[in-house]
């Protein structure tokens, strides 16, 4: 068998397997790839995953077929000719150049596509820091209005809904500035609405992961990490902490729900009334709530700036703080 026909065989097998694999993936597997279609970004992130998958599958098949062929055919067994030697076996300029060119093109296009998807989809549901640059229309304005205490939301309009996610060891709670700044321990959202999540933490780093919404943003103490989600379907979704936050990290989950706009409105107004007594004790809505590094009982850092400083006072005070 000559060189050419061997390569033809391999390439033919590769093309067939790749086409079949890609088609199977795209039509059978792809639609079931998480995170599903509950939000706009979930939809596009699923699409993005599938784009990468159909790009990656041929690469995987290429290597596997090559390995398989090599193991079967290019073995040390009777009848197999001695391997080629000399310069030809050491390097082929064409193959190297081709490989480098093709991998570069694939890789750079993947990066370009990823960037387009990221920007076009307003950060794809990922945490965008305190000052998001890729925000949906009106979201920043709504978020600023919330800080000024002027947040509103009604089922009729199309205003974004601002929700604050407060992570603490080991539970998420949520504040709705449009409903009197009430705080709840359940996350309910209206459908067909742009939701602005202001994610922050009261202690260590957590990560707010609303799985089916395709929203993931680290909750950092003293930092507001903003993420967006455009809800599309009603239903239940899972919220988990995705950054190791200590002993009860594994138990830091609960479920949320996307409701119809009217049902959400009904729930929100009812809860606002129920919680009114507690809401009045809450601090005004803010991006972050600077926690006391010392916790409830203190006893770690000395309070305030100790002047004049003496190591003895800071470290070796005779009477331990109560």
């Amino acid at each position, binding site marked *: 068998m000559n060189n050419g026909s061997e390569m033809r065989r391999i390439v033919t097998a590769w093309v067939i397997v790749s086409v079949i694999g890609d088609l199977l993936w795209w039509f059978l597997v792809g639609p079931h790839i998480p995170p599903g279609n509950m939000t706009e970004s979930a939809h596009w992130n699923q699409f993005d995953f599938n784009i990468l998958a159909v790009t990656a599958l041929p690469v995987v098949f290429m290597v596997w077929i090559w390995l398989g062929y090599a193991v079967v055919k290019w073995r040390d067994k009777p009848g197999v000719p001695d391997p*080629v030697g000399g310069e030809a076996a*050491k390097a082929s300029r064409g193959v190297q150049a081709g490989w480098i060119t093709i991998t570069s093109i694939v890789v750079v296009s993947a990066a370009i596509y*990823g960037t387009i998807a990221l920007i076009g989809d307003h950060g794809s549901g*990922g945490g965008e820091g305190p000052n998001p640059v890729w925000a949906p229309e009106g979201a920043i304005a709504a978020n600023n209005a919330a800080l000024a205490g002027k947040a509103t939301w009604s089922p009729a309009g199309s205003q974004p809904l601002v929700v604050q996610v407060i992570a603490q060891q080991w539970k998420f709670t949520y504040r709705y500035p449009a409903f009197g700044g009430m705080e709840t321990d359940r996350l309910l959202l209206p459908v067909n609405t742009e939701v602005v999540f202001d994610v922050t933490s009261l202690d260590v780093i957590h990560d707010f992961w609303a*799985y089916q919404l395709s929203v993931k943003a*680290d909750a950092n103490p003293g930092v507001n990490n903003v993420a967006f989600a455009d809800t599309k379907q009603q239903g239940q979704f899972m919220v988990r902490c995705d950054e190791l936050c200590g002993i009860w990290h594994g138990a830091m989950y609960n479920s949320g729900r996307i409701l119809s706009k009217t049902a959400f409105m009904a729930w929100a107004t009812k809860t606002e009334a129920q919680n009114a007594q507690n809401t009045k004790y809450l601090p005004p809505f803010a991006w972050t709530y600077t926690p006391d590094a010392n916790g409830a009982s203190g006893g770690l850092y000395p309070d305030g700036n100790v002047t004049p400083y003496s190591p003895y006072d800071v470290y070796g005070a005779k009477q331990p703080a109560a």
Partner: protein
Amino acid sequence: MTISAERPTEATAGTASPAGPRSGSSWTNRPGWMSQHLGTAIVLGFLGYVFGHWWGNYLASGYTYIANNGQNGVADFLGLLFMVIGWLLGIGALNYPILKLFGREPGEETPAPGLSRYFRYTLDHKVVGMQYVVGVLLFLFTGGLLAMAIRTELLNPTVHIFNPGTYIEIVSEHGTIMMMMATSIVVGPLGNYLVPLMIGSRRMAFPRVEAFSFWIFSAGYMVIFSALFYGGFPTGWTGYAPLQNQAGPGMISYLFGFAVIGIGMMSAGFNIAVTIVNYRAPGMTWSRVPMFVWSILATASLLTLATPVLFTAGLFGLLDHLVLTSLYVNEHGGSSYLWENLFWFFGHPEVYIMALPGFGIVAEIVPVFTRKPLFAYKVAAAGMMGVALLSFFVWQHHLFQSGINPDMRPLFMLTTELISIPTGFIYLVGMGSLYRGKMRLEVPMLFCLALYFNFLIGGITGVFLSDVPVNVTVHGSFFVLSHFHYTIMGGLVFAFMAGLYYWLPKMTGRMMNKKLGLWHFWTMFVFFNLTFFPMFIIGLLGQPRRVFEYAHNLQGLNDFSSISAFCLGASFLLFFWNLMYSMIINPKKAPANPWESLGLEWQTANPVPLYNFERIPVIVTEPYRYSEPGAPAYADFGGGTGAGAGTVGSSVQE
């Protein structure tokens, strides 16, 4: 640093005896139990711990915060610090630096022959290499046992074997021990043993630094293990602040352990990089350097330059813990982002510290078994150096969802995906070398092929992870966990196994049993994939890392993964049995060059003499000239050992 001219001093002094007249007393030479060895190290290490702990209690038990929380981290830290110092003193690692302070130059310390030299501080790179073999296997087995514990807990979504605190402790300890092990698993044993042999050198550039690196590596094992005595640490191997600052004294073991291991990594990398640059045999130009040495050079450079950043990060953490600075505490002017940046600035090069040696081993072994030259040598070398360089510019891809510099995400997405170009070179090289070869499926070759299989999955999923939109779903989930197990275990550990099966005949003069080896390979390969492939699905279905409770619908997959993991553990027992059986119980003498390799390391006498080569070889041509009848031998041994060898099989010696 120990910069000196031991051999030249002795040479010009004109004495044949290794210990010249001006030598200081060298305790490591003394025979018997009076000398310094592992025993004295243990004793002094223990005494150091007791002293440090007492001193810490004396100093700090009255500190306000310590009186409040009732856990004296200062005592624990000082205990560990003096334990390490005592350990180094006891083994004799500090003799030379101290003597040097007084201008005394001990001669070359030739350790006593026999088994006992493996328990001593020694200047022979081959002994250090063997010590490292035992050291990394100890790390590997400890970490592996903890992995079994993790999988046991995950058998059931809500019924718990361990309480959540203990579970996090196990997870963190497993991750940290394995990461520490993986930085040295190839550079330590194989790098130290083989690099001088492969570059035709009689010695390392700084043998004392080399030996020091091993003994501080072993001290690091004790330090990180000590975390369990202090109640563990809850942060995983990434040690994110401010959870780190909140944790108890177990965290000090983690921070100090990484600092100690970091010193070991820096010194090992420093010595090896300098050796490769300077001690190559005459004629070994950069285009004639074996590919394994290239990979070790790239790794050593990363070790030397990236680890200081980890050291700083650990130092900051220790300061936060011990003297209440606030480097990682936002409320007092610090920043939790600071740790994330420093840690990953080291952490990403570290990922390649754990990948490159594997590539090197494979590129070294594949030509031997396909009887073909290495395809695209220059591309392979460029790939390794390219990966090493690019790895400094990708660290933020661990922080896509963190809110740090979110507008930089496209840039880091690009750099991360760019790094798959040089990584892809390894595949070009491997596939090109397989092309129309004459492959012998020996155990090392099987492990190499498995690396190509596994690392492909690991690498491709890495591209998924680097894509920010997809990262939103998979970040921090079991998908990531599976990805890096595919690269580190599927890549590096498989390559390490290939290296052991391939080079142990040289290192010990004994062959590994092939039949057991095949059993080991197939069980490890199959169960590795059965353990970790389901984890991609588990991750995609929404299970975060490091949780002790998960969704009920994932129990089937988790159980499958757990049971496969137990079988994978059994496969390691099989390896251990093979190692014991072939090396100790029923040793079979290995042929001088069992794989018919052209590599320089196989041309020295077996067992390898103290100075490796009778004559310094002169390299006359490129490596890997297989299947070239009439090609000259790789090296000219000038009539010394190895003369006449160096071409193989049908090749004709000219």
